[in-house]
């Protein structure tokens, strides 16, 4: 699922930059290529933040429209995709705010929690946890589990671990420092691990762990 666009330090112009140039000059077909290239990623990221399909569809539309309107502001010193993700994250947070009738929503919400800062569930998992559940049941477990994380952890995990952005790109997309991204990523991973353990732990491991207490 990761999107590799341009390796650091190369002087070669990325195809996205050429598409942006053409789109700036009014070539709609060039912009359509960018939409087709990144719509799935934007849809996934939006869904993870707003947790509502209709809102995620609106975010996809609004994010691409806003990107189109702001193409002149794209500097080219970051990747187009990173720039687009930043717009999509902001649009998603605005949408979430509307749904919560104006209450402020930010990626800093609930990040002070101590949950997951130290592993508590120390039982090993089944060697192949994916074999324990059917495809749709597994998807439901994964959705429900990640939805339980604070938005500020969820979005860092999604960008870094699911979408494959680098730590630097994640920081740039979210307007966070690199240490903040690293800290949130660790907490997100540990919280998810802890919550998934109840589904995936090795049969008999519970009794073993309880006996050890």
């Amino acid at each position, binding site marked *: *699922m990761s999107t590799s666009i341009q390796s650091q330090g190369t002087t070669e112009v990325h195809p996205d930059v050429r598409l942006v140039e053409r789109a700036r000059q009014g070539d*709609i077909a060039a*912009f*359509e290529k960018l*939409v*087709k290239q990144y*719509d*799935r990623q934007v*849809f*996934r990221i939006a*869904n*993870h933040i707003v947790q509502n399909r209709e809102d*995620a*569809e609106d975010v*996809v*539309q609004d994010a*691409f*429209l806003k990107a*189109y*309107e702001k193409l002149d502001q794209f500097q080219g010193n970051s990747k187009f995709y990173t720039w687009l993700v930043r717009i999509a994250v902001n649009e998603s947070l605005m949408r979430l705010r509307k749904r919560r009738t104006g209450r402020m929503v930010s990626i800093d919400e609930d990040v002070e929690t101590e949950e997951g800062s*130290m*592993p508590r569930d*120390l*039982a*090993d*998992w089944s060697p192949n*946890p*994916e074999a324990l559940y059917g495809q749709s049941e*597994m*998807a439901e477990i*994964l*959705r429900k589990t*990640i939805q339980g994380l604070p938005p500020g952890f969820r979005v860092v*995990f999604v960008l870094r*671990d*699911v979408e494959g952005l680098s730590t630097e790109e994640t920081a740039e997309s979210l307007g966070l420092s690199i240490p903040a991204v*690293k800290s949130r*990523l*660790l907490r997100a*991973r*540990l919280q*998810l*691990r802890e919550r*998934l*353990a109840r589904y*995936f732990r090795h049969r008999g491991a519970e009794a073993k762990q309880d006996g050890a207490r």
Partner: protein
Amino acid sequence: MTCTEFLAQLDEMLDPVLAGPLRADLEEHLRSCEHCEITLNTTRKTIEIYRSHELYAMPEDLRDRLHKAILAKCKKC
């Protein structure tokens, strides 16, 4: 190395390209700590599972509809 110190460096262990003295220290801790080994392995599995499951697939008919809507709005800009 304590378990807390190991945990603070978990990201480094999950990075397959890391090599050198830090990795050696982390691996040494792992050899003597079953709990940290389990935490590392299950965290790695957590990431793999999320990476390999498409939780929010975008059907083709939805893509077509959104593409048309986006491009129609762009043309009006």
